[in-house]
């Protein structure tokens, strides 16, 4: 195969790579294979040619005077892709490392039509600072006025004086007193250290600085129409900052808005524009920017999130509830829940409206938020959420009622103890126990005393006894002992489960009165009963020993 033929194949591989590399992410094996293939093709040519130089024209690429590529159209024309930005020659040199090849192919794959970049191919290659890929560029394409240099030089030289001025200077030179000489102060290690620190501290994101200056500019406007423009700039800077993970900029802006509008000397027009800005910060558009960066994995300090939420208006609540349902990562959801928990303190009703959201997971999160806020006025909304068709929501609502509720909600929870789903029932039992009023105890005791109790699963029965054990009252212990001792002819297996669950409950009470009946059953034939009895004895005696 001739060199030209090999180069033709390389160019074809580049054309294919340009398309295919857009499809696959960089960590995909196909992506790596494409890079490897082109790299090995080019390095094998370079092995005996030393360099591979391509001349670029609008429709052709030439190697060694021979066209190795021709493209007519505008789309998919590799020659034009380089030509339009002024690249006229492209040379690959021997020693080309794979990473440099990959960087080059990365640039080749950029879709300039779709990506709004401020960089062209030359800038992208320049930034990579390639060592083994060189390019020649025709900068004249940048010029609007090609004769500028010629005119400027001519004009500058036109002003030239005759030699008299110079000779006069020479004549006077000896008589003129020498002026002071500026001594260059040597740069010290301390200066270098200082400068290194400056460079390190010089962050990329200057949004806060700009926002600070824009607030300064508000006091320098020449025309009141500029207030709106400046506020708009603050909004854009803020949007940019937040989308780059800089939530401090939002906190700073909110603090400045509060400062500026607090005084009586704030002009009405300024106040109105800053209030607009604050409203923008509550909008779905702005909040979705925060959501995006959270979803991309940016982590914010909890204190910063709290501060941000504390400064925002409650108008932001619907926006945050909206994005809550869009987030993909758990970490992002935690952050938004944290914001809403703080923000919700200002307007519990707005948060509670989130319970109407059609997405069950959003409703569940809202319930969590209401629990974190802990405002009793949310209880009435939670009572409604208990009837949510999704059992995951239902459980969350029941659990929350247990934490936040009072005796008023026990009737609702009692209903839930009859739910068809066992997990919902178990959650309800725990919630009733958490409320912990005498009525709670009565509800649970009544349920245990009910005939149907025997037919429940062992887990559920154990839950009842365990919850009841928090009351170490005599009547509770007596009921459990009765259940432990009860023998039946029918449904013996179910009855044994009840006895085992009661044994578990007695163990949890730590009651000494339970020891005697438990000891009698410590060698029971039924394993479930025996294990629960022995565990209960161990727990009670252990507790007693600890106490003594």
């Amino acid at each position, binding site marked *: 195969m001739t060199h030209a033929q090999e180069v033709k194949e390389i160019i074809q591989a580049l054309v294919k790579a340009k398309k295919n590399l857009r499809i696959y992410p960089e960590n995909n094996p196909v992506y790596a294979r494409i890079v490897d293939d082109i790299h090995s093709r080019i390095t094998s040519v370079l092995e005996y040619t030393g360099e591979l130089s391509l001349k670029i024209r609008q429709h052709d690429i030439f190697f060694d005077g021979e066209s190795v590529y021709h493209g007519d159209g505008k789309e998919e024309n590799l020659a034009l892709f380089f030509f339009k930005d002024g690249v006229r020659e492209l040379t690959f040199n021997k020693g080309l490392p794979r990473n440099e090849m990959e960087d080059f192919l990365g640039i080749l794959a950029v879709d300039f039509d779709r990506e709004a970049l401020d960089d062209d191919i030359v800038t992208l290659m320049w930034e990579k600072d390639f060592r083994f890929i060189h390019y020649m560029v025709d900068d004249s394409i940048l010029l609007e006025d090609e004769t500028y240099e010629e005119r400027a030089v001519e004009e500058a030289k036109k002003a030239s004086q005759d030699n008299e001025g110079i000779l006069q200077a020479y004549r006077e030179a000896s008589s003129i007193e020498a002026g002071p000489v500026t001594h260059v102060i040597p740069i010290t290690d301390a200066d270098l250290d200082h400068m290194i620190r400056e460079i390190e501290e010089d962050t990329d994101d200057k949004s806060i600085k700009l926002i600070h200056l824009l607030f300064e500019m508000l006091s320098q406007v020449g025309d009141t129409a500029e207030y709106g*423009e400046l506020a708009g700039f603050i909004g854009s800077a803020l949007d940019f900052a937040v989308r780059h993970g800089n939530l401090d900029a939002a906190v700073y802006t909110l603090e400045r808005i509060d400062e500026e509008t607090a005084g009586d000397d704030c002009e009405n027009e300024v106040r109105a524009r800053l209030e607009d800005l604050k409203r923008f910060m509550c909008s779905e558009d702005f909040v979705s920017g925060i959501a995006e960066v959270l979803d991309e994995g940016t982590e914010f300090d909890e204190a910063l999130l709290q501060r941000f939420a504390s400064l925002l208006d409650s108008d932001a609540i619907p926006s945050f509830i909206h994005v809550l349902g869009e987030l993909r990562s758990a970490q992002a959801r935690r952050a938004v829940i944290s914001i809403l928990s703080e923000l919700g303190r200002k307007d519990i009703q707005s948060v509670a409206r989130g319970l109407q959201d059609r997405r069950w997971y959003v409703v569940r999160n809202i319930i969590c938020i209401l629990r974190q806020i802990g405002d009793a006025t949310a209880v009435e909304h939670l009572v409604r959420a208990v009837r949510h068709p999704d059992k995951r929501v239902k459980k969350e609502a029941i659990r929350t009622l247990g934490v936040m509720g009072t005796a008023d909600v026990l009737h609702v929870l009692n209903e839930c103890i009859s739910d068809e789903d066992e997990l919902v029932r178990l959650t309800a039992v725990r919630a009733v126990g958490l409320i912990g009023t005498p009525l709670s105890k009565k509800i649970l005791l009544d349920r245990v005393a009910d005939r149907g109790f025997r037919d429940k699963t062992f887990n559920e029965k154990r839950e009842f006894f365990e919850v009841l054990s928090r009351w170490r009252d005599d009547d509770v212990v007596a009921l459990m002992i009765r259940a432990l001792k009860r023998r039946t002819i029918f449904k013996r297996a179910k009855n044994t489960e009840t006895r085992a669950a009661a044994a578990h409950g007695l163990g949890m009470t730590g009651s000494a009165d339970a020891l005697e009946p438990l000891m009698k059953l410590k060698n029971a034939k039924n394993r479930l009963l025996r294990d629960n009895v022995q565990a209960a004895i161990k727990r009670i005696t252990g507790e007693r020993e600890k106490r003594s």
Partner: protein
Amino acid sequence: MRERREVDLRLAGKTIINQLGVVLRTGQIHDIDNVAVMDAVDKFIRLVNPVIEAEGLLKIDVIGEFFYINDSRVRYPLEYMLNFDYLLREFQRRELGTVVFGARLETDEIKTFLRVFMSSAYSGTPYEAMEASLEECTNIRIDRLKKITEDGDMDQKKIVKKTYFNAVSFTESVMNRVKAGEKVNMKVAKRVVESMVDLILSEEQLLVGMTAIKDYDEYTYHHSVNVSVLSIAMGQKIGLSRKALTELGLVALFHDIGKMEIPKEILNKPSAFTEEEWSIIRRHPYLGARVLLKLKGFDRTSIRSAVVAFEHHLHYDYSGYPEVRNPVKLDFYTRIITIADQYDAMTSSRVYARVPLAPDRALRIIMERSGSELDPVLCKFFTNMIGVYPVGSLVLLDTREMGLVYECNPLFADRPRVMIIVDGNGRMTEGIIADLTERDTEGRYLKSIVKTLDPNRYRLNLAKYLL
């Protein structure tokens, strides 16, 4: 393996040059067998031998103001600057241009090199002394420093001129577009600045020299480019990355864009401004920030450009304008650009300040303002970059020749390259370039500056000589 080696060489280059600097500096203070010297030598050998094994040899070249290792230009971080400058100075003093280590190095070989290098400083012909002393040492070969040929100079100068005027032409078109409310192509802006950055990295003195010519009508466009060039040069001196230099250059290019919003009749008024006119002029930082934020969408560069445009007259001590209610530390780029801006403005003839200051006088003012209007540490970097006699200074030499400073020497601030325009007999000459670091066989400088004159007083046209 090949790939790995290339990466390592690139990284190792700066460490090797730095360590050679350490070896020679330590050798200057202590006896060669001192532990400190031996430690430095051992470390140097540990760095160098793997490269020699991989590459077959290690060649250190000095070309212009840069070191090359095996033909690869070595870029160095700021913390190595003192050692790099020291080494460059010592190589240039000895006219030493190349050192080649042909095979694995032994400690004794480096000790010999060190001894020869040190003792050559006392010779009137240091290069020859080194060459003779190293004759026996087959593993170390040296070569004389190559003078950059005038032809090469001319080609480079053409490129420098082209780049400079491209930038001015582009700036003019940007300003006109801004005025007309049209979109500005930032891709082109970046390309223009990247070309300047490339030239600052390779031909700093030539491009900085272009800023000394002030005989143009369009002050604002040239001023914008000059400030950009001087800022990039300063940024390079303090060790900013290429990408950061591009951003700095772009930001500098747009620092005065607010002036486009000032009525031309005020801007071009030949007589003194009234208080009201001054107050309008003083609005250009505010207007500049607004223009830049409207120019395109918000990104890092537009944000930073707006910050700098607003701050560039505020001053380090906040004594400038516009007045601000809550001063915060000026942006790093603002502090760089302010120095470049003040220096270029002082040395330029503007409509409202017809007589510009001589470059050395402007430099003195910069130093006077250090710590008040200007950042003191950055002022140091600026004066080190510009030299005692900035390009365009009119100087009288001890040979009774008169010349224009043509190029500064960053290593010998008081010994620039001078274009002789009047010979010792008072006759005009063709503009021969004299390097003031050149010495006679006894080590005495051939020519030295005795005094400076104000080129503006004699209405000297620098363009005639420097363009």
